[in-house]
C-alpha cells in the first residue's frame, strides 16, 4: 500500500466530518462570519451548527466571539491561524490521495 494511502488514516478527524468540513471551508474563504450566515450557508439546524462550532472551537481551529447587536445576540466566528494550517494540511493530504488513486 502506498505512503499516500496509508496517510489517509492520519486525516484530521475534526475537519473530516462533512458538516465541519463545510463550516471550515466557508470560514477559510472569509475573514469572519456570523452564526446566521453559517446557518444559511450550511443548512444545519441551530443546535447542530452550535455543536459543530463548539467542537471546532475546542480544537482551537475557530474563534467564537459572542456579542449583542441591540437586543439580538450576535455570534461571530473566524478561523484561527491553527485552523487555517490544519485545513491546508487536510486539503494537501486529500489532493495527494486523489492524485495517487487517479493514476
Amino acid at each position, binding site marked *: 500500500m502506498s505512503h499516500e494511502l496509508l496517510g489517509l488514516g492520519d486525516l484530521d478527524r475534526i475537519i473530516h466530518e462533512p458538516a465541519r*468540513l463545510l463550516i471550515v*471551508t*466557508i470560514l*477559510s*474563504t*472569509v*475573514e*469572519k*462570519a*456570523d*452564526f*446566521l*450566515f*453559517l*446557518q*444559511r*450557508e450550511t443548512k444545519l439546524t*441551530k*443546535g447542530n451548527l*452550535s455543536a459543530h462550532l463548539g467542537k471546532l472551537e475546542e480544537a482551537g481551529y475557530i474563534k467564537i466571539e459572542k456579542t449583542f*447587536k441591540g*437586543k*439580538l*445576540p*450576535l*455570534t*461571530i466566528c473566524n478561523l484561527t491561524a491553527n485552523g487555517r494550517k490544519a485545513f491546508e494540511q*487536510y*486539503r494537501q493530504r*486529500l*489532493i495527494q490521495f*486523489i492524485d495517487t488513486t487517479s493514476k
Partner: protein
Amino acid sequence: MQSDHISRVEERVYRHWYEDGLGELTGGGLFLLFAFYFGGHAWIEKGNLMGRLFLNGGLIVLLIGGVLATRWLLAIMKAHFTYPRTGYVELNSPERISLNRAVTAVVGVVATVFVFLLGQMLGSFSWAPAVVGLLFGIVYLLIAVKSGGVKRFYFLSAFSALLGFGLWFSLLIVTFNLALFYSVLGLVSIISGGVTLARFLKENPMPTELEDEP
C-alpha cells in the same frame, strides 16, 4: 476537498455580498455625483478661472470624500437591511485588502497617465467616455465572473462599454459626454440595485424570533 469545490464556496460567499443590490445602489449614487461634477465643467465657461479652480479642487474632494461616503453608507445599509436577514460576513483578509488596494492604485495611476499621454498625442479627449465605459465594463465583468455568473453584472458590463463607445461617436463636448455617461450609468445602476433590493427584501423577511443562538 478539491480546489474547484472551494472556488464554488468562494463564489457563493462573494455572490452573497452582491445579492442585496446595495453595492449597485450606492455605486450608482457615486456615479451621479461624478455626473454633477462633469456637468459643472460643461456649464462653466472656459474663461471663468475661479470656477475652473473650484471644480478641479472639487475632483479630489469628490474622489476621496465620495468613495469614503459610499463605503460608510454601504456599511450602514448592510447593517440595517442585510445582516439581520441573511447574516454578517466579512469578505477579505487584511492582506488581501491591502493587495487589492495596491493593485487598484497602480492600475488607476497607470490608466490616468495613459489617458493623459494619449490625449496629448491625439490633441483631443473625445474618446474618454469610451475608455471610462470600457474600464467600468471590465470591473462589472470581473464581479460577474468572480461571483459565479450573476447575470445583471454581465448586463451592466455590456451596457457600460456600449454607452461609452456610443457617446464617443456623438458630437457632444467631452465633459458633457462624461456627465451624460455617469448620469445614465448611475441611473441604470440604481434601478438595477433597487429592483434587486426589493426582491431581496421580499425573499428574505426579517426574522421575527428573538431566541438566543445556542
